[in-house]
């Protein structure tokens, strides 16, 4: 039995998981149109390799990964590419981004199989990562980091590979249903990941409110005789957050600003393991996933949804009314994002679609519109799993004191929403922290730009100075070359010229002057004049200026 640890704080939430787990998972209806954003992952967007009008097959590569941190994209179904254009994507800002739009033909024709792997253990870690990368697999827990990158420890030792099946947010049950229905496949995917990482240990963490999923996993482990621990963890939100799950299972903390790999741990979501299994064993790229549809719908349930399916289609399929939508949340009620429209598609990281309509009574009690002042009750600090002081961070976020808020470790906030949930003043705390973070990022970007500009300016000054110096140097060299003489020819020429000048001078000296041939009388007159002048000079008073 593994000794479990506790993370600090957290909140106990109403689960609301019963409804959507009553029905078995089935494939969602094929939508007439698929919208596939080129960027469904952390990193740069994929680059399209198809053009408008191209026919594509199910599973066919339609956009390739440009650089290291990127994931390729595949057609979720067969059909025709009708546009490669900006479409609304699931983002908090309601922004549009480049997407490949496919009109499906209803035939679901697969591309031919590209590889057969009989025994993944015979593949090298690099080959395995190659398959995973080519299948476009990203973290399915929501963050969407390319899985192949996270499966490459870069030579660093991996002690424990943790598979996250905690699923701590209310309403979301897609991982639970996946484990209940495909425990063996998830387990195989985990073993493939372990092979890629050369991890010593494997642990699957699962919240203790999913006994069926737990039993299914235990059964799968027993059946395949794999050396994998399946551990139930207490149901306290946010037990499914990577950092908190690591703490519960190992007692270790991920260093601030670091990665789990820094403490020899890699953490993946159970859905990712399933996608890895399908890519390696069945040669199926990531073109579908389990999605929970819950809230104001007649039949809350989980569906296997093709990536790119518009949310509106799912809402209709589950008996929801698109005309009376009030709030549409992608993800869970604690960390999910409210959408601006229901035309946005399901992407690789979409685990849940939470519908709230005006006509339907859904227990999503949201905070008051009017926030009272903070009374420093400290409920937020008690609830914070990162052990931050949210009340102080709020104070500095409001004051826009972004230095001070970083002293209070803003960037260790995981935005789990616990503080916000328990705040008696109903302050949208997480909104303030997100605002502060983005302001700081903007300031840093501006500062980088300013630094760059200053650097450029300084370099220009330096260059001008250097050129000036070089010019001066050149002049000096020239001058010294002239005075000291460069070559012997020059010296000789100068010498000759100077000789000539001297000769000419002596010649001039030898020419007769008007005082040369004087008569004695003339000579005497001159001598007398000279004497007079001298006498006059001598007798002149000394104070008189000469």
């Amino acid at each position, binding site marked *: 039995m593994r000794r479990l640890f506790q993370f600090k704080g957290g909140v106990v*939430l109403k689960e609301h998981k019963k409804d959507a787990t009553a029905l078995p998972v089935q494939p969602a209806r094929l939508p007439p149109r698929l919208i596939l954003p080129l960027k469904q992952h952390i990193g740069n967007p994929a680059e399209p390799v198809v053009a408008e009008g191209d026919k594509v097959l199910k599973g066919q590569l339609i956009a390739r990964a440009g650089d290291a941190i990127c994931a390729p994209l595949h057609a979720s179904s067969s059909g025709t590419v009708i546009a490669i254009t900006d479409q609304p994507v699931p983002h*908090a800002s*309601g922004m549009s981004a480049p997407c490949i739009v496919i009109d499906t033909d209803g035939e679901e024709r697969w591309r031919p199989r590209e590889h057969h792997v009989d025994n993944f253990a015979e593949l090298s870690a690099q080959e395995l990562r190659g398959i995973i990368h080519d299948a476009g697999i990203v973290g399915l827990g929501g963050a969407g980091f390319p899985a192949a990158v996270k499966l490459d420890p870069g030579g660093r030792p991996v002690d424990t590979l943790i598979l996250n099946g905690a699923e701590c947010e*209310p309403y979301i049950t897609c991982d639970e249903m996946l484990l209940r229905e495909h425990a063996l496949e998830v387990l195989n995917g985990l073993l493939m990941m372990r092979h890629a990482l050369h991890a010593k240990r494997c642990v699957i963490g699962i919240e203790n409110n999913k006994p069926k999923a737990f039993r299914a996993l235990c059964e799968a482990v027993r059946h395949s005789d794999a050396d994998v621990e399946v551990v139930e963890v207490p149901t306290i939100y946010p037990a499914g957050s990577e*950092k908190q799950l690591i*703490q519960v299972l190992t007692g270790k*903390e991920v*260093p*601030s*600003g670091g990665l789990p790999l820094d403490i020899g741990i890699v953490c993946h979501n159970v859905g990712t393991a399933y996608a890895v299994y399908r890519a390696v064993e069945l040669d199926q790229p990531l073109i579908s996933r389990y999605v929970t549809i819950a809230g104001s719908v007649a039949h809350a349930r989980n569906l296997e949804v093709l990536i790119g399916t518009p949310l509106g289609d799912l809402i209709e399929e589950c008996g929801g009314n*698109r005309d*009376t*939508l*009030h*709030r*549409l949340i992608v993800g869970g*009620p*604690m*960390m*999910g994002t*409210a*959408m*601006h429209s*229901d035309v946005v598609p399901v992407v690789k990281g979409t685990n849940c679609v939470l519908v709230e309509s005006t006509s339907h009574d859904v227990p*999503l*009690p*949201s905070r*008051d519109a*009017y926030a*009272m*002042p*903070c*009374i*420093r*009750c*400290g*409920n937020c*600090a008690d609830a914070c*799993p*990162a*052990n931050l*002081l949210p*009340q*102080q961070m709020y104070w500095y976020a409001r004051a826009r004191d972004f230095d001070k808020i970083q002293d*209070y*470790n803003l960037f*260790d906030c995981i*935005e789990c*929403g616990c503080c*916000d*949930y*328990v*705040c*008696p*003043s*109903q302050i*949208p705390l*997480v*909104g303030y922290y*997100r605002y502060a973070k983005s302001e700081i990022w903007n300031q840093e970007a501006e500062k980088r730009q300013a630094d760059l500009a200053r650097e450029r300016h300084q370099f220009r000054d330096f260059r001008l100075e250097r050129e000036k110096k070089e010019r001066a140097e050149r002049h000096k060299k020239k001058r010294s070359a002239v005075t000291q003489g460069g070559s012997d020819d020059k010296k000789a020429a100068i010498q000759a010229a100077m000789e000539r000048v001297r000769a000419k001078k002596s010649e001039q000296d030898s020419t007769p002057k008007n005082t040369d041939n004087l008569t004695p009388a003339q000579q005497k007159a001159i001598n007398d004049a000279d004497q007079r002048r001298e006498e006059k000079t001598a007798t002149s008073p000394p104070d008189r200026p000469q």
Partner: protein
Amino acid sequence: MTLQTPPSPHIHSGIHVSSLMLRVIAALIPAIICYTWFFGWGLIINSAIAMLTALASEALMLKLRKRPLKPFLGDGSAVLSALLLALCIPPLAPWWITVLGVAFALIVGKHLYGGLGYNPFNPAMVGYVMLLISFPLEMTRWMPPFILEQLEIGFIDTLGVIFFNHLPYGLSIDALSSATPLDAMKTDLGQNNTVSEITANNALFGDFAGTGWEWVGTWLLLGGMYLIYKRVISWQIPLAVIGSLFVISAFFFLMDPDTYPSPLFHIFGGATILAAFFIATDPVSASTTPKGRILYGIGIGIIIYVIRAWGSYPDAVAFAVLLMNMAAPTIDYYTQPRVYGHARGKD
């Protein structure tokens, strides 16, 4: 169809400032009933005057500060401050004492600092200290338990005393009043009596602290426990206040039981329990980090004892709370908890 797009989280526990305040008020009610049982209708009348004054002052200040009335008048904080102050005022104090104290507490102690959430000092204690310093005579006219009952002074008569300073049968207030147990203890100790001599001959001193007061304290303790159980207040501050007062008073009591009263007397006499659970725990003016709350509470416990034992006031709860209110921001700054993923021993 316009979709709402607030930031996450999209659910809330439903807890409000007003629900916290109402719970604190509810926790005070048993003690108020007990107090009335021992000391008559005065507290009920004072509480009513205090609450009306509080709501009027709050409304006036909100109007002047151009803040919405409804959320703030309904948050219960003004009513709670009024009740806490009423509990600290002698039950037969004239009405204007209560009005002045509460108005000062809310206008100066709360709204001039920015209103709810911004006051560095506990408003009730600000009002109380102002009264104690400005009107020492009215503020020290306490009564022995059951005196009003013995004299058959009922509700209407009490109203007469509070509003018109009129007592039936030609009695004077001074004839009724007596010192509190803490006050009596202090005065008598000053006359070189031993603790056992003082308590032996005086009906003021009950079974373990002071007749009547010890039971009011017990009910306050139970109310406080309820608040901790309901997580309205945290356990650190009450435990630290009472714990530190217990340790320091036990130390001196064991050294010299003739000069220093027992820890029980210190804890149940006077306003210790009220302070520990209801006043020091006022979140706005208290320390807010877990370690900080303990330091803050210890500070209050020590200051209470120091002033009671060697200062010139018989009780010191208000001074102790205000002094530690001043220290709270500094305490908070130096007691930040270790954040997840940061090395132990460093920040």
